[in-house]
């Protein structure tokens, strides 16, 4: 509590910090909503500016970008089916169908509200129960991580229910792409086909922008032939600033699941927003009264995704502050920002730099509120994107994607990946191959292989060591049940038919 008071005291004594925080959130939203530019890139680009600031001021700026950047991704995800950041890709599944129904404003306001709820929940967790929560993260070893990844994979499998064969092909193409590059453990090159440029592997941002932005642009351009896109892009006359009571009642479980899942998953290093959003989406669909509406524009889908990916932010700050371990890619960059200021994150930070810890907590809490106010305030501006002709919007977005992907490593090779896989994505779409399993296969494939390898190393190649890990085993059983659930009635029927009499 003393730490929190120190933080509040700092903000009250230096109102300039609030302005910096608001600027950070605004900058983050802009970066988040432009496909290709991510929260991580925003923080990397602004870190040099923090050299001349005090530690507290610099951190307020970076946390503002973090919160704004992750939330801002929902804007283009909903309006044009291109996620601003990879973490918002799950939002596309229901956000864009809602926008196509003429409910873009409602979808946006619901998404922004869900971001606020998720962010605030994790902020409260960060403020009040950070130390005990961080102990959960310590209980997770390689097998537990692997089972969590497999749980994510089970969602991928469930997504393929409409066309299982092509869905599986899509997921395994993603997993295969994740193998490209030098294997981090053995040091051997795999699937590089002799190109040294591929040895570092394929960038997640380049791949996700290829399959979501470049492919989507090409597909929509093709759509100019088939129908008049302009006529379908309508918005409501009156945009609700907060969701109505009925929507809130229907989406209540999604808010709760997203907040809890997001915060816990955020604490687990390397798992990230996309996995959290996906697991929440799946869990919400499992308990929903209208599971068939998922993917067709249900508010529950947007809430699940946005609550979870924003709750991850606060969750990721918990191990950062209490253990000195980053929870995701952005907090890994934040650690760099802390170290530049001569601050070493970890358990001692609470004693040595209470003001810094308090500032981070208060900044994160306030950033969520500012994010909500700014996004609602600019809602009418955002919604106008829908009125811009796609013929003008797409080329400009493409240029932004190119800059974002190039700026990651200053490599033209990343742009080749963006373009080539964008074109491949177009042809895959032509062949009715769904894209989400491919992206999720790619994101999870990297983590599955790494954790599987580490776990096997730790157990000296004994796969049965898995049975000694109750948390891992429980999660695996849940995954199996989730995969089999749609087929359970048929399996039961087969068994019943086999029993004589």
């Amino acid at each position: 509590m003393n730490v929190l008071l120190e933080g509040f005291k700092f903000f009250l004594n230096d109102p300039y910090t609030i302005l910096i925080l608001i600027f950070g959130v605004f900058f983050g939203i802009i970066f988040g909503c432009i496909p290709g530019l991510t929260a991580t890139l925003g923080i990397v680009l602004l870190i040099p500016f923090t050299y001349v600031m005090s530690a507290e001021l610099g951190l307020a700026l970076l946390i503002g970008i973090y919160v704004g950047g992750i939330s801002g991704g929902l804007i283009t995800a909903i309006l044009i089916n291109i996620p601003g950041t990879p973490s918002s890709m799950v939002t596309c599944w229901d956000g864009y169908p809602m926008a196509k129904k003429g409910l873009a404003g409602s979808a946006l306001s619901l998404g922004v509200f869900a971001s606020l709820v998720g962010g605030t929940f994790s902020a409260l967790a960060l403020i009040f129960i950070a130390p005990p929560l961080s102990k959960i993260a310590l209980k997770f070893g390689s097998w537990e991580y692997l089972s969590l990844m497999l749980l994510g994979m089970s969602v991928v499998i469930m997504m393929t229910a409409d066309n299982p064969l092509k869905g599986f092909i899509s997921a395994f193409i993603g997993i295969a792409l994740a193998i490209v590059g030098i294997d981090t453990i053995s040091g051997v090159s795999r699937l590089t086909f002799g190109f040294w440029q591929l040895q570092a592997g394929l960038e997640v941002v380049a791949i996700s922008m290829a399959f979501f932005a470049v492919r989507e642009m090409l597909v929509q351009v093709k759509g100019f032939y088939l129908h008049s896109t302009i006529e379908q892009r309508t918005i409501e006359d009156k945009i609700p600033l907060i969701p109505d009571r009925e929507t809130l009642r229907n989406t209540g479980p999604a808010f709760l699941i997203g907040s809890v899942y997001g915060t816990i998953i955020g604490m687990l290093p390397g798992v990230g927003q996309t996995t959290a959003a996906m697991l929440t989406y799946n869990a919400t669909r499992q308990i929903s009264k209208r599971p068939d509406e998922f993917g067709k524009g249900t508010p529950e889908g947007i809430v699940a995704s946005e609550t979870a990916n924003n709750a991850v932010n606060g969750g990721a700050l918990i191990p950062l502050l209490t253990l000195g371990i980053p929870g995701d890619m952005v907090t890994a960059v934040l650690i760099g920002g802390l170290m530049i200021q001569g601050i070493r994150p970890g358990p001692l930070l609470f004693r040595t730099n209470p003001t810094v810890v308090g500032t981070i907590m208060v900044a994160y809490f306030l950033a969520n509120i500012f994010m909500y106010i700014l996004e609602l305030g600019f809602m009418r501006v955002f919604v106008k994107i829908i009125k811009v002709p796609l013929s003008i919007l797409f080329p400009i977005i493409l240029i932004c994607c190119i800059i974002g992907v190039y700026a990651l490593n200053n490599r033209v090779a990343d742009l080749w990946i963006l373009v080539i896989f964008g074109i491949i994505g177009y042809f895959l779409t032509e062949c009715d191959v769904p894209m989400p399993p491919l992206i999720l296969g790619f994101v999870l494939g990297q983590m599955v292989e790494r954790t599987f390898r580490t776990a096997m190393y730790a157990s000296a190649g004994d796969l049965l060591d898995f049975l000694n890990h109750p948390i891992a085993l429980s999660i695996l059983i849940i995954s199996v049940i989730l995969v089999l659930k749609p087929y359970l009635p048929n399996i039961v029927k087969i068994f019943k038919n086999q029993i004589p009499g």
Partner: protein
Amino acid sequence: MVNIKNDLILGSAIFIFSLFMLTESKKIPSGILDEQIGFVASPKGYLIVIASVLLLLSSILLLKTIRAMYLNKGWIKTSKEIFLPKEVFISMILLLFFVSTLNIFGFFLNSFILLVITMTIYYLKEKNVDVNNKKQLASLILKFSILSIISLIAIQQVFVRLLNVYLPTGILGF
């Protein structure tokens, strides 16, 4: 809806890709980490497993497609007749041109070409503008050129000057 032609192309492409993967796996020396972590978790074993699954899946798709062809005595015509419209093809060529000449012509010039051409051809199609009306076409190109230059100057100011992002300048030096 079944589209036999597309499925046959897809199945064949994935089949060839998985064979490539298997060939590539042969380049990895056998035995690396096999003893410590088992074959499936080894860099070679994992690759072989994924390639084999893809090979299996593509084989199933090919067999299903060939069976459908046999039952329907040829291709099934579907609504998905347009496979690669002119505008999409031009976009792909432009993108490949952009990346391959980025270091030569630089970001500004390449982006200008990409923006003006894509905006013009997309707009013509989206709004059903008469291409034969030369005056209208010229005014559109002028409009998009101005819009592109303004957008690119704004982007350059923000990213290069303010945020210190390096973008290739090319032989023209900007």
